[in-house]
């Protein structure tokens, strides 16, 4: 048991001393997850709103597909994106394999269905009186749509935070698309996997503490937002 306690003490020392390698993984994780969450929100919120607000033929089928994609395994996304962006793939000339951009693209594919599905649910759950109220107050066309989205804002934020939580904690995509390159594409999760494999529990634990802190912040935000929505 000693080595676990020693690893824990060493991990605190690494975090407090500002260890470059540890913080490189932390900042890389933050960069990638920020890129992927921004992209997924830009794509997912409008699609989710349209899916939740309007009735159209095939809506249930589209919804079923989106909901199925919520359970996408990260390694499957990693596999397909790898096939597309590797040299032999149709997007190979982009040269984004083993880069932060490559990981961000794959993570966007992973988390966009979460944003779409939860946004659609949020919009579907809007109060039935909202539309009549907006019409009665003189809102028209785009004003009705924008105000309706604003009314669902806390639930949409829940979608964003849930998606962000998925992005920072995934390991399969980061490993397959990023290649776990030190100082470059090594993220918290890939570093933990590597260091644990090497038997260096201290670095793994330090990064684990950071990841748990992120998870705590994400979950606290979720609880707060769910209360408000």
């Amino acid at each position, binding site marked *: 048991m000693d080595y676990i306690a020693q690893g824990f003490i060493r991990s605190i020392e690494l975090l407090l001393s500002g260890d470059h390698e540890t913080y490189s993984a932390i900042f890389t994780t933050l960069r990638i997850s920020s890129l992927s969450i921004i992209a997924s929100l830009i794509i997912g919120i409008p699609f989710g709103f349209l899916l939740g607000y309007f009735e159209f033929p095939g809506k249930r089928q589209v919804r079923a597909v989106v909901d199925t994609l919520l359970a996408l395994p990260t390694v499957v996304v990693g596999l397909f994106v790898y096939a597309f962006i590797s040299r032999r793939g149709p997007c190979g000339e982009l040269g984004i394999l083993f880069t932060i951009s490559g990981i961000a693209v794959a993570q966007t594919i992973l988390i966009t269905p979460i944003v779409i599905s939860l946004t659609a649910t949020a919009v579907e759950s809007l109060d039935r009186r909202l539309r009549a*109220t907006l019409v009665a*107050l003189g809102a028209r066309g785009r004003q009705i749509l924008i*105000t309706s989205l604003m009314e669902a804002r806390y639930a949409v934020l829940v979608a964003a935070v849930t998606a962000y939580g998925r992005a920072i904690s995934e390991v399969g995509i980061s490993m397959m698309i990023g290649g776990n390159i030190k100082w470059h594409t090594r993220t918290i999760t890939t570093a933990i996997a590597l260091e644990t494999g090497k038997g260096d529990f201290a670095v793994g634990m330090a990064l684990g503490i950071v990841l748990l802190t992120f998870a705590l912040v994400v979950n606290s935000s979720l609880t707060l937002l769910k209360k408000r929505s």
Partner: protein
Amino acid sequence: MAMHPLYQINNLKYRYGQHFELDVPDLTIEQGSSIGFAGSNGSGKSTLLRLLAFIDLPEEGDIRFDGALVAKNNGGSKRDVTMLLQEPYLLKRSVFENVAFGLKVRNDRKDIKSRVYGAMELVGMFPGEFARRRWHELSGGEAQRIALASRLILRPKVLILDEPTASVDQQSARLIKEAIIECRSRFGMSLIIASHDRVWLNSATDMVKRMHEGRIVGTGAENVLSGPWNDEGNGLYAKRLADGQTLFVTKPPQVTAAGVVNPSDIVISVFEPDGISTRNILHGIVTHMTMERDSGDILIEVDAGGLSLLSRLTPSAVQGLQLVPGKEVWALFKASAVDWY
């Protein structure tokens, strides 16, 4: 002021599912008038109001507003009409933002702060206390008044209210009435109100139209009695009230028919009468009293076993009987006093 028709309705029809159909062959509402619609649940009041507010469009027939045919694309005239829903919905923002919303969507931001505060004061909400509150920090009555303020600030040509007093206390009901009457006299807006509270409705409007099963069946403060009726023999039909009392009528055209009793035909007694020929002697409690605007008579609302009855009495009769809300009374009327639709 010369009156001119604001709404002209011809052969209006609207269906909900397979059973309910609103059918208004002809209705004209004059500009500046204050009209009430009374009727039981499912009588079509709310459906008619939503059509008059342009929230829904007629399936058959047409509505002309200010001479123009109402259609999907004439958004301009639609902004002259606003409606307060039965259960108000406040946007998830501050009270101030809720009241200001209608002005902002019209891009009318001139003196917005003073106008919002003015509208809030009109409904008895002090801006200093309430303007910054969030939507969920209000009671039901306060939310209803803020929803009303958000309509009044728009100074619409027509203000439509659906059951505005259904879920508010007496003070809020009074403040709502005062605010709409004040706005009507100041800005000349027309009022269209649906309410179960017939006493409140009579005191807030010039004319009350009664609705039953999707049709306008009459005008005035009359009591609607609806079936089903059980044949008791000897030409008498009866309906059991919730507290076990029995209501008697004569000759309904069908066992499910509805009829009306004029409030002037209902006599009030403060003692249980004995040895009289009147079949209906219903024990109840006075729930509301109000002065009828045109006649100066007093309308007394009595709850008898869940049945709400209006009786029209002279002020001296009310004084003589020392009637006050909460007093036990007996409402008397002949079984033959019912006029059938």
